[in-house]
């Protein structure tokens, strides 16, 4: 009963204006109502189960329990200290040139079919990457000290 009332009130809100409008092949906001219901049910399920496990499960709190786990030894310092941006830069550059190598695998497999055209395509690609490599070396991105 409640669900029916909900749908009726939703009709009132979203405007079931089939009498006032001229008959056109127009989609109404009302047509999307099932998606709203589905989203509410999904969200409700997640929230309910999370709250239920939170309140039903046994819990125990203490200073030691709430400390971060560091293999059983006392925590030293803060985990959120700034560290050198170089790690990030090197990691990103690694990913970049890693992907470049991944591109070369399918090219090598299809080398004979692609022929001379493929060879020059790959040379162009590699050339662009090498320009990038020269650029980052010139800028000193790989200098650690």
């Amino acid at each position, binding site marked *: 009963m409640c669900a029916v009332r909900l749908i009726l009130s939703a009709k009132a809100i979203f405007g079931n204006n089939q009498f006032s409008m001229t008959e056109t092949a127009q989609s109404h906001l009302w047509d999307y109502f099932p998606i709203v219901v589905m989203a509410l049910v999904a969200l409700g399920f997640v929230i309910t189960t999370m709250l239920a496990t939170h309140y039903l499960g*046994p819990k125990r709190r203490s200073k030691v329990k709430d400390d971060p786990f560091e293999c*059983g030894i006392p925590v030293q310092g803060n985990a959120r200290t700034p560290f050198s941006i170089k790690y990030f830069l090197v990691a990103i550059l690694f990913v970049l040139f890693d992907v470049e190598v991944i591109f070369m695998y399918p090219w090598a497999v299809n080398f004979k079919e692609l022929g001379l055209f493929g060879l020059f395509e790959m040379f162009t690609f590699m050339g662009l990457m090498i320009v990038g490599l020269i650029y980052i070396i010139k800028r000193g991105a790989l200098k650690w000290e």
Partner: protein
Amino acid sequence: MSNKVVIRPENKPEGYEGEGYMLTRLDKVVGLARANSLWPLPFATSCCGIEFMATMAANYDLARFGMERMSFSPRQADLLMVMGTISKKMGPILRQVYEQMAEPKWVLSMGACASSGGIFDTYSVLQGIDRIIPVDVYIPGCPPRPEQVLDGILKIQELAKNEGIGYRQSAEYKARLAQYGIE
């Protein structure tokens, strides 16, 4: 071989049964769920750890008991398996790992060293981990055979099955922890 799931009668909790359904008590269901999905934290410090590796491997296959997943963080672990000599320096570390585990949790002490210090009756070795944390099941042996480890695991499962729902919030449990000075 048929694909039919066989539920062994000895594993079934008592309850009211009918065609295609069964009613039983909530604590029985919770106990079954807990017992058959224990996530162990292997705290292996010496040779018992090697024996534990054999228990985990294909021949003895601990995964049969719902223990496929080793938890190397105490946060997701249900069962602390202490395997090997615990020196006095290691004691506080073991204790902190135990304290940081989520409830409910059980402790399995494997082998003579973990249970009593074993042959290492010296100034540097903890004479049994039950001096610092509560232990649920002891496995004797130096080191124990994998079959003994499986037996110990089954005993832990039996404990988990019959624990009931409210025990971990009870004063009894708090008193038990207080004996070891754990909040």
